[in-house]
Every structure is written in structure tokens, then in C-alpha cells.
């Protein structure tokens, strides 16, 4: 029976048409890698035989993905570029099939005006990043109100009912703001517009962002604070303070400097002290308005708590600034430095007011009727400055610190191991745009190997585009180098074909992540 099948198959094999072959791209206009003065009216791909179009995708210089109009005539495919073809590098991903039914795909790249520059760290401000910064302002204000009031209740005195109500509202606002922050982080990582907020891919991406952990911790902290405000209990308030501070340490520029345990602890301390200080201002102002005679002991108790808090705040802040700046000149010459300088000026103003309150206005509290009002007004100004400080802290998200500018984007290192050969790859900057690949090729026993050729292919893992293939060139140092434009952020696969001899090829594959 099996034999009969086999002989039948053999017979059919013999009869099967032998002339069929995969379609091959023979010519393209504009040619691959061309730099044109103006956008072409069409892109023409000519194959060795008649083809049918399967999938055509166009990636514009800004990373926008569109499906261009395609007209097929025999062996020639004409692709109409999107109407507003901007200056920069365009990439056309094509997939066709021919008589043998086997789909064949590739990418075709050309530039209008000049090739797009690599997306650099200073251009990190996207719609997602701005949304994230806005969500942070709401979050920080909610945290300062909610957790601050709960901590005030635990450390100083129970706040007035009106303050408790306001603080509870602030704590409740944290949950939706944290949600918005998480979504915005996903958008930012994918470089996607806010209209894609309902996209599952955005949220899957957001789950990978460190800020999502912060958002989760802040939501939990705010929930604890809300409970602590309704049923006052010192331990609950302090737990909310601790969790909230941990949320600040879980993500951000400052907490990502190594050694992380140290910078993380500094950030948590800084945040805890700030929450206690800012959070105390509203209850203090309310206490002064409500009960002028009873306010004096509350103010005294707060002063006892505030002194060590301000010391912690200043010390941890100074240490963090030192890790982020290269030189004092950075304060004025970089965006991050200017923002930091503004924040420091605001904090200095707050400290000045605090000193005025502590040493001039508070001692006079029992003196006359006007004194509590003057202290209250001073505290209200302090609250305004505090809000401005929170806005600055939220906006740090939009500007990379000088430390990051100096280091440059870190290359992604990938080690690939095969039967005949292995390769150590470094892809830099592993961001959308032009990337450099450096490959050191060794044989499977770690001995130097000089292959006949090294070809590197990149393909997005979601299959949105065909593979981008580049031939690596061997340098005098024996290291293979290639350049490739990776037009979309997200998870990519890299495939390295090492031609060990005329008849032996090792195919090595790995995964990495392309940042927006």
C-alpha cells in the first residue's frame, strides 16, 4: 500500500511542471537606497515573471504605516506613494506571489531630499510622552493631597473634615490618572497616536514599561490612603506613604542610575519627604482657618516633623542632582538642567516661606488675631509653589538628563550560537531609524572564523513588514558591519546568515526590541 502511494507520488513528481520558479525582483525605480530631489509619482518594481500583489505597506519617515495603491501589469508592479510623501527615508514592504504560488517578499528603501537622521534621545517627546506628563501632574497632585493628608493624620493631627473630603477626592483621582499614565506609556513606547489607546497592543506594550509598576503602586497607595482617611489609623497612613514613595522609585530617569538600590532609595526618600511636606500644607491652612486658638499646637507638632523631613528632602535631592548632571553648566545648557534649575528655584522659594513660617510667623501665633491669617496666607502661597514643583517633576519625563545624553543610547547586545558558527551582535542605537549592526563571528569552539559572507536580516515580529536584509562588510579588524533602517518600534527578530564555506551556511536567529 505504502509502496503504491510512493510510486504514484514518484510518477506525479516526474510529471509536475519543472519550469516553475519563485518570482525574483529584477529592477526597481527609484533604485534601492536612492536619494531623490522630490517624491516620485510612483515606485515601479519589475519581476522576472508575472506576479500578483499580496501585501504592500508603506512606512513614511515619521513612522506612519499605510497601505499604498498598487497596480499590477504582467511582471511590473506600480505603487503609488501616500499623497503627502515627506522629506526623509521611505520604506516599501512588498509581498507578491507568482505561478508557483510561493509568496516572495522584500523591502525597498529610498529617501526624498535626504535620508532621515536616526531618531535621537532629544526627540523623545511624542504625543504619548506629553499625555504621560499630564497624567503625572494629576497623579502627583492626587498623591500629595491623599497620601499627604493620611500621613498628616498619622504624624501630626487629624485633619479637618473639609480637608479629608478633598484629600479623599484626590486619592480617588489617582486610579484613573494611573490608568491614563499606563496607556500613555504604551503609546509612547510604540510611538503611536492617542487614537490607538483602545488598541490591545498598546496595553501589552504598556505592561512592559517600568512606569506601569509605578502606576500600580500609586493606585494601591492611594487606595490605602483613602481607607486611612475614612477610618483614621496611623499604620495605614504610613503604609500608604511608603507604597507611594516606592512608586516613585520604581521608574524614571533618576531611579535608573546604577547602583539602582541606592538611587532607588534616594528617590523613595525624596518622594516620601515631599509628600509629607506638601500634604501637610492643606491641613495646616485649614486648621488655621477653622480654629485659630487650637491651631498653635498643631503647627508646633508639624514643625517638629517638618525639620527632619526637609533635611531628608534636601540631602536626597542634592545626591540625585549630582548623579544626573555632568557639570554645573548643564543647569543652563540642557533642557533637563533648565527644568531642574526652575524646580530648584521654586523649592528655594518654598523653603524661604517655610523658614519664615517656622521662625517668624509661627512663634507669633498666640500673639494677635492677625497672625494666624498671615501664616495661612503664607502657607497658601507655599501650596501654589508646591503645585508648580509637581508640574516640573512631571515634566522631567519629557527631557532626557545630561547623563543619558552623554552615554548615548545603549546598543543592544545579542549572542547567537549555532552548530557551525556563532556571532556576537551589537545593534545601536536600537531605535527607530538608521541602525548600525556590528557582528563578531567565531566558530562554534570560540576560534576566529572568516566566513565568505555575512548577511543580516531584520523583521518585525508582528509580521507588519517584510524582512529588511543587508549584506555586512568585513572591516580590517575582522569585524562585520552593516547599516539598516528599522522603520517601526516594537519586537524585532534578527537573522544572521553566515556563509562558512561555499556549501555551508549557518543561520543564527535572535530577538530584540526597537525603541521609538
Amino acid at each position, binding site marked *: 500500500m505504502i509502496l503504491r502511494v510512493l510510486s504514484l*507520488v514518484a510518477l506525479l513528481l516526474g510529471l509536475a*511542471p519543472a*519550469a516553475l*520558479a519563485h518570482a525574483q525582483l*529584477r529592477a526597481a525605480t527609484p533604485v534601492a537606497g536612492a536619494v531623490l530631489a522630490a517624491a516620485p509619482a510612483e515606485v515601479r518594481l519589475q519581476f522576472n515573471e508575472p506576479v500578483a500583489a499580496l501585501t504592500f505597506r508603506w512606512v513614511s519617515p515619521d513612522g506612519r504605516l499605510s497601505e499604498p495603491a498598487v497596480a499590477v501589469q504582467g511582471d511590473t508592479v506600480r505603487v503609488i506613494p501616500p499623497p503627502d510623501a515627506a522629506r526623509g527615508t521611505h520604506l516599501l514592504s512588498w509581498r507578491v506571489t507568482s505561478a508557483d504560488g*510561493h509568496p516572495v517578499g522584500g523591502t525597498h528603501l529610498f529617501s526624498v531630499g535626504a535620508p532621515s537622521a536616526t531618531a535621537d534621545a532629544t526627540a523623545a517627546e511624542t504625543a504619548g510622552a506629553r499625555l504621560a506628563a499630564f497624567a503625572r501632574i494629576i497623579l502627583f497632585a492626587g498623591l500629595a493631597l491623599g497620601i499627604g493628608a493620611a500621613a498628616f493624620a498619622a504624624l501630626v493631627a487629624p485633619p479637618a473634615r473639609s480637608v479629608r473630603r478633598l484629600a479623599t477626592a484626590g486619592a480617588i483621582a489617582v486610579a484613573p490618572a494611573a490608568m491614563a499614565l499606563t496607556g500613555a506609556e504604551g503609546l509612547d513606547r510604540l510611538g503611536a497616536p492617542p487614537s490607538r489607546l483602545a488598541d490591545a497592543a498598546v496595553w501589552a506594550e504598556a505592561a512592559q514599561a517600568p512606569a506601569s509598576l509605578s502606576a500600580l503602586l500609586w493606585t494601591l497607595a492611594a487606595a490605602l490612603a483613602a481607607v486611612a482617611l475614612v477610618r483614621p489609623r496611623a499604620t495605614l497612613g504610613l503604609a500608604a506613604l511608603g507604597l507611594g514613595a516606592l512608586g516613585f522609585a520604581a521608574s524614571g530617569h533618576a531611579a535608573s542610575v546604577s547602583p539602582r538600590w541606592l538611587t532607588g532609595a534616594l528617590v523613595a526618600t525624596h518622594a516620601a519627604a515631599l509628600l509629607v511636606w506638601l500634604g501637610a500644607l492643606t491641613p495646616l491652612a485649614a486648621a488655621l482657618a477653622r480654629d485659630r486658638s487650637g491651631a498653635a499646637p498643631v503647627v508646633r507638632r508639624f514643625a517638629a516633623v517638618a525639620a527632619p523631613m526637609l533635611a531628608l528632602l534636601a540631602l536626597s535631592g542634592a545626591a540625585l542632582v549630582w548623579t544626573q548632571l555632568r557639570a554645573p553648566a548643564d543647569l543652563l545648557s540642557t533642557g533637563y538642567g533648565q527644568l531642574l534649575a526652575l524646580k530648584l528655584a521654586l523649592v528655594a522659594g518654598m523653603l524661604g516661606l517655610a523658614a519664615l513660617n517656622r521662625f517668624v510667623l509661627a512663634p507669633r501665633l498666640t500673639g494677635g488675631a492677625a497672625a494666624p491669617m498671615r501664616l495661612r496666607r503664607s502657607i497658601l502661597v507655599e501650596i501654589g509653589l508646591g503645585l508648580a514643583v509637581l508640574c516640573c517633576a512631571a515634566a522631567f519625563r519629557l527631557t532626557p538628563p545630561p547623563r543619558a545624553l552623554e552615554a548615548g543610547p545603549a546598543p543592544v547586545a545579542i549572542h547567537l550560537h549555532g552548530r557551525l558558527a556563532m556571532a556576537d551582535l551589537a545593534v545601536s542605537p536600537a531605535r527607530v531609524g538608521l541602525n548600525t549592526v556590528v557582528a563578531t563571528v567565531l566558530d562554534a569552539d570560540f576560534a576566529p572564523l572568516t566566513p565568505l559572507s555575512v548577511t543580516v536580516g531584520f523583521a518585525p515580529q508582528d509580521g507588519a513588514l517584510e524582512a529588511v536584509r543587508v549584506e555586512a562588510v568585513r572591516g580590517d579588524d575582522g569585524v562585520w558591519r552593516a547599516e539598516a533602517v528599522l522603520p517601526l518600534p516594537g519586537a524585532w527578530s534578527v537573522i544572521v546568515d553566515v556563509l562558512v564555506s*561555499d556549501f555551508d551556511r549557518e543561520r543564527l536567529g535572535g530577538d530584540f526590541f526597537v525603541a521609538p
Partner: protein
Amino acid sequence: MRTILSAAALCALAGVAHAHATFEVSEAPVNSTYKAVLRVPHGCEGEATLKVRVRIPEGVIAVKPQPKAGWTLDTVKGPYAQPYTLWGSTVTEGVVEIVWTGELLDEHYDEFVFRGRLTDALPVGEVLYIPTVQECATKAERWIEIPAAGQNADDLAYPAPGVTILPASAQ
């Protein structure tokens, strides 16, 4: 009925396989002499093929290529990894590479023939891949990819032509 269906399915796959450089007879029993007819369907992306090179894998011995009109025939001889017994005598070396030099236009088709003994060192039931390279003026088509475990030759862009080794009783 099932026989016909599976044969049809295989035929559909075979149609795809013809896009590549392949052997006309895709299976042969172990311990037999196999006549390999290598079919070259096209050149290198438009360029004419100037050289066809075949590397003989270990376990295939006593290889003799068939001369081809208009083509120069060369062989590279070398030692085998292990000695083989053929008709009572021990064989330790033989042809390890065949090179035909000539010209085959991209729009033409041709076949290249050689014979060899499939020794019992070859695992029965598995495909024996025979890497083949077409060299053109500036490019090359390398039919040298061998599917990894669990991979199908159809998944490869340039699979090496192969022959399935059948049990000796199937002769």
C-alpha cells in the same frame, strides 16, 4: 480515495519544490546506485549560470559524473571520513565535489547528471541533502540550506536538493 488525496497533496507540495534546484528522482533505496539528475530551473536573479558545483556528502561513494556537451567537467577528490566496503574491497577516498563549467542562460533550463553508491551508512527514512551551488558572473544561488529538526524544506528559501533514503527491501 485517501491514497489519491494524499498523493494530490504531495503533488501540490512537489509543485512548490520545483521552484528550487531539485533531483528528478527524489527517493532511492539504501545500498544501491543512485542516478542523480539535478534540475537547474533558473540563473542567479537574471544572470546566466557559469558553474554548477555539487558537494558529495559523506556516505555517498564511487561517484561518477556524466560529461555534458559544451561544459567542462572537473572533480575534486578527497578522503572519506570512514572506510567503506564496495564489492568486497575497501574504499577510503573518492570524488567529494563535482564542478561543471559552461553557460546556462537564465531563461533556459538544464539537467546535470551523476551516479553514486548510497552506502548503508546513510540513515534509512531520512532525506540525504546534497548541497549545490550555481555560480554566475557576479552572484551565486546557493542551494545549501538543510532544514533543522521540525522544519520543512518548503520553509527554506534555498533548500539543498535531497533524496529520501528508502529501506533496501523497497528495491
